Every structure is written in structure tokens, then in C-alpha cells.
């Protein structure tokens, strides 16, 4: 009887408790508008500090075209504390988020206490507040920390404003340089200059070292350079040539390409005991390895079926799986930070574009619209892909956000810029 009762209730409830449902799949193409109000300054402190901090934060947040700003001249008020803050002043300007803050003195040594609050204007709530103590000589660094927190609060993704880029600059046919800089192109440092080609820079997970390939001794050779001491060491793995080094997520080994008698294969190289372990063994070219975020798999490019395609190999079981089948050129694959998707260079009729693919899906999707894109790198928060591309003969770094709303090029100096590598986040 109870069964029967439930059955009836179930059948009846199907009809009674269902109501109209409207699905929303598409979001707006608009960007969130943020007002970066100049920070207030306590008496006795250099007045320009307030404006400098808000400008630094604004510069960071607008860098990748993910937000738009309200111009300072259009602001109706310049509140620096919550008691002076009125939502309506921002609502009528169409602002989504408003950042205010205040700079206070801690001591006479120039240490400052900077407090800030972020408001969601539509919801009429404060969504973030915080304080930072720092030196007046490091306003830019302090601003990066605040920018990261704001970015994380609004987007739910990690802020990347204190990450760095490594890249190769080829200013004339005989000068190759490996450089690192902040993501806005500022603070560029040249790590090494050579007359022979330099390739494939890759950051160690602790951000202290960079591995790259240099031809300075005539053959491709992998060097690891310490960023603090500047010391360079060749890893001198066996084989004729070594190339395409990539650090494992735990930093203990490198995946690399070693060529014995002209046939490149993928190997693992342990940095502790300098032992080389073979992963692939095929007469085709296997190259461009990269680790999955969980370190269990390595994606690589191979022409074993006649055209370059992407494969992945389990580092323990050595089981291989082909990942791409569309078109006759899919190369330089990398995993997204969540390990569920990959991005790579997809060639089609002489055009080379950056494409993405969910590992669980058959389809690939091209992201970029330029035609000679190469060596894509992803931001550690998984939201931005940068790549080297060409404008005539000049190489520059282009970028795109994954939702496709924003495309940008990174400010770089003269000379062709190639092979960007994005540093990991600071832990």
C-alpha cells in the first residue's frame, strides 16, 4: 500500500510541481566596469601616493582587456572611506565595482599602511576589504598584491599580476637574447646573449631557474640558469642533441627530447641523479613534450603517422593515446591548468592558429584569427593565452582571453620576440 501511495504521489507531483523554466546559456559581451577611485592620503604623507596606487591597480586590471574603467574625471565623488561612499553615485554611471582606499603612515621610516575596500554596486554590498603594510618605495609591488586580490574576488580566478614572462628576443640575425620581464613588459632583464640561436625557455616551478636550449657550442644543448646567481649549467644528458626541456610540476625532473643518431625521442631526466629514462621509441620524430598538471602524463608532438599530431603518454605505464585527428598539422600541445583540456598550434591551409580541445570531446576550436601563430603559453590561472605571432617581419606577443572577449598585444621592445613562457604563481 505504501508503495502504491508513493507511486501515486510521484505521478501526481510530476504534474503539479513543475513550473516554467527559462535557460540562460549566453552571457553578455560587455565587460565589468570598475571605478578605481584615487586613494585618500593621511596628512603628512606625499599626496601623490594615493593617485599612484589607484593608477597602478587600474593599469594592472586593464592590462588584458578584461575590464573597463570609469575615467577619474567622470567620477562624481572621491570617497576614501566607507562613510563617504554612496552607491547611487556609481550606479548612475553604470559602474559594477568600485575600489576605494586610504594611505596611512605607520612610522617615520616611510612604511605605509594601505587599506582598501571593493564594493559591488549592483548588489550594494562590500565584497572585499583589506590592509597592507609596505614601504613607500614599493608602491607598485603593493598595488600588484591589491590587484591580485580584487581580480580574484571578481573573477574567482587567481590574480597573475606578480607573475613574469621569459622569452627569446632576436633583434638581428646574429643576436639572440633570453629575457625575463613583468607581464606588463616592465623591468626587463637580459639573462643571456649569444650569437647562436636560443630556444624553448621554461620556468622551474619555484620560479628560481630557467631551462633553455642554446646552440652556442654548435649543437642543441640544454642549460639551466639560476636567476639569482646567474650561474649556467649544461645538463649534459647523453645523446647527440638535447632540446625542448620542460620542468615537471614537482621540479625534480625534466621532460626533454634526446636525439641518438638523429632520431628524436622523448625522455625523462632526473635532476637529482642525472638519470635518463626513455619514454618513446619510434623512428618518427617525437618532440615538444609537456607535463599534465598531475604529472602523470606527457603530451608530445609526433609525425609517426605522416603528419604532426598530438599524443599523450602515461609516464608510468608508457601507454600512448592519440589526441588530435583534425587536419594535418597539430603541434606544440600544452595542458590547461585543470588538466581537462589542451591548447596547441593548429595548421590549416598554410595558416597556423592557436586551438583548444577538451580531452573528452572530439572537436577542436580555434581561438586566434592571425595566421602565423606559434608557441602558445597559458597564464597560470588558465584565463589568458599568449603566443608569438608576426606583423610583417616583426614578431610580437599576442594574447587572448579564453572567452574571446579580449585580444591584445603585449608591449615589447624592438626585435622579434618569440617563445614566451609564463612563470608559475608565487606560492
Amino acid at each position, binding site marked *: 500500500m505504501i*508503495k*502504491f501511495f508513493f*507511486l*501515486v504521489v510521484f*505521478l501526481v507531483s*510530476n*504534474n*503539479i*510541481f*513543475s*513550473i*516554467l*523554466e*527559462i*535557460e*540562460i*546559456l*549566453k*552571457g*553578455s559581451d*560587455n*565587460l*565589468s566596469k570598475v571605478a578605481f577611485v584615487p586613494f585618500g592620503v593621511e596628512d603628512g604623507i606625499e599626496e601623490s601616493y594615493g593617485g599612484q596606487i589607484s593608477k597602478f591597480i587600474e593599469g594592472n586590471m586593464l592590462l588584458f582587456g578584461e575590464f573597463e574603467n570609469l575615467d577619474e574625471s567622470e567620477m562624481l565623488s572621491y570617497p576614501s572611506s566607507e562613510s563617504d561612499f554612496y552607491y547611487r553615485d556609481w550606479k548612475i554611471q553604470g559602474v*559594477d565595482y568600485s575600489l576605494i582606499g586610504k594611505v596611512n603612515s605607520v612610522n617615520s621610516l616611510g612604511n605605509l599602511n594601505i587599506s582598501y575596500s571593493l564594493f*559591488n554596486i*549592483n*548588489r*550594494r554590498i562590500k*565584497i572585499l576589504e583589506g590592509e597592507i603594510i609596505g614601504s613607500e618605495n614599493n608602491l607598485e609591488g603593493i598595488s600588484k598584491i591589491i590587484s591580485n586580490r580584487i581580480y580574484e574576488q*571578481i*573573477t*574567482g*580566478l587567481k590574480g597573475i599580476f606578480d607573475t613574469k614572462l621569459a622569452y627569446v628576443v632576436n633583434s638581428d640575425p646574429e643576436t639572440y637574447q633570453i629575457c625575463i620581464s613583468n607581464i606588463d613588459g616592465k623591468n626587463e632583464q637580459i639573462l643571456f646573449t649569444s650569437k647562436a640561436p636560443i630556444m624553448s625557455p621554461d620556468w622551474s616551478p619555484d620560479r628560481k631557474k630557467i631551462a633553455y636550449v642554446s646552440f652556442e657550442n654548435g649543437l642543441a644543448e640544454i642549460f639551466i640558469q639560476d636567476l639569482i646567481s646567474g650561474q649556467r649549467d649544461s645538463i649534459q644528458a647523453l645523446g647527440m642533441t638535447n632540446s625542448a626541456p620542460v620542468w615537471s610540476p614537482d621540479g625534480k625532473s625534466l621532460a626533454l627530447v634526446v636525439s641518438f643518431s638523429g632520431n628524436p625521442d622523448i625522455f625523462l631526466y632526473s635532476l637529482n641523479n642525472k638519470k635518463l629514462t626513455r619514454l618513446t621509441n619510434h623512428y618518427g620524430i617525437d618532440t615538444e613534450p609537456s607535463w599534465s598538471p598531475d604529472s602523470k602524463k606527457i603530451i608530445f608532438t609526433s609525425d609517426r603517422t605522416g603528419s604532426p599530431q598530438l599524443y599523450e603518454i602515461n609516464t608510468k605505464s608508457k601507454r600512448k593515446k592519440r589526441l588530435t585527428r583534425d587536419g594535418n598539422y597539430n603541434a606544440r600541445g600544452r595542458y*590547461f*591548468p*585543470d588538466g*581537462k*583540456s589542451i591548447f596547441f598550434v593548429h595548421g590549416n591551409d598554410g595558416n597556423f592558429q592557436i586551438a*583548444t*580541445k*577538451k580531452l573528452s*570531446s572530439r*572537436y577542436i*576550436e580555434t581561438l586566434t584569427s592571425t595566421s602565423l601563430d606559434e608557441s602558445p603559453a597559458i597564464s597560470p590561472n*588558465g*584565463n589568458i593565452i599568449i603566443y608569438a605571432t608576426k606583423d610583417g617581419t616583426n614578431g610580437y606577443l599576442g594574447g587572448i*582571453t*579564453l*572567452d574571446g572577449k579580449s585580444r591584445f598585444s603585449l608591449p615589447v621592445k624592438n626585435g622579434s620576440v618569440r617563445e614566451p613562457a609564463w612563470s608559475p604563481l608565487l606560492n
Partner: protein
Amino acid sequence: MNKALTSLNTFFLILLFLSLIFSVFSVPKLNVDEQQSIKVNFYELSQQDDILFDSSIPNVTIKQETKKSSLTDKKIEPSEAAVVSKFKFNKSDIKNEISKIKLSKEREDILRISAIIQSRISSIWIKPNSLSESLITKVSINLAPSGEILNFKLIEPSSNNSFNESILTAMNKMTFLEDVKFLDRKLFEENFRNFNLVFKSSGEIE
């Protein structure tokens, strides 16, 4: 004892069968005035756009969510309307046809308003990047007949907080869905007084 159980089971099976038959046959009689759900999905609405501009063709496809009755997709071909005008049927047939047309008119209204609501919410929702994650958040809305949003509630939040926040932000931007005020009052009460918005993201990488 076993015999008793078997016969009881048979009884339930027959009952289940009968109730299925009942639910299938009761569908055409299910006027929109019964509390039924009409799930409007995106693709139907994009087809529906054509109809919005040419309302003379009553080619409406409505997917009903009543789970037991998947046969409820209802199509009225333009030719069918023509047939009705060409031939004389007996009285009950005509009555049937009229109620069908009335029904389709009501459904068309529901679809039209749903499409407007959908595009208005879409135009203000700034969807965050959810990488490869698939997310679903359900919001329940109460409307006044004037279209004023009386209140809304996240009834089924997703696991991603910034996704939920983006939806709350969008919902706070919207104060009126005034298009419902042109609806027949009965239709409004039955469908738009209280309805759900289902926000979905399949991740940035399709």
C-alpha cells in the same frame, strides 16, 4: 503468500500501465491553465525568432518537462491550419481545432515573452570564465503583474562561487521585466508569477 505478492505486483504493474496511458492521453486536455512546466531551450527560441516577426505562421514547438510524457512535443504545421479552413468538420472537430489554435496562441505568447526575458538577462549577465567546468545555477523569480521583480532566490546554486555571484549581480541589475504586463492575466498568473531561470555554463572550451 507468494501468490498474494505476485497478484499485488501484477496489480501495481497494471496500475502503472494505466497511469502511463492516462498521462499520455490526458496531455492534449492539459490546457496551459494546469500547472505544467514549459521548458524553453535556447535552440527553440532561436527558431522562434522567425515566428516573432511572422506571427501568421503558427509553427510552434514546445518541449514540456512533464517527465512521464515525452510525447508532448506539439507541432501545428501551417498546412494544418489551412486544412481547417478548407474543409468543414463536425462541430466537435471545429471546437477541438479552435482550442488547439487557442492553445498554440497561448504557447506562442509564453515562448515570445520567455525569449524576451532570456535575451534581456543574457545582455546583462557577465559570465565568468569557468574553464572546462560545467555549471548550473537555478534562480526562482517572483514577478508582479506590472513586471516588477518582487524577489528572486538562488534555489540551486552551483559549486562555483563566482559563477553564483555573477548571477546575483546580473539579477540585481534587473528590476523590471515589463514585457509581461501585456500578457493575458490568466496566462501571467499561471506561468510568469513565479518561474525559474536556469543559468548554464559548459565551460569556455566547448
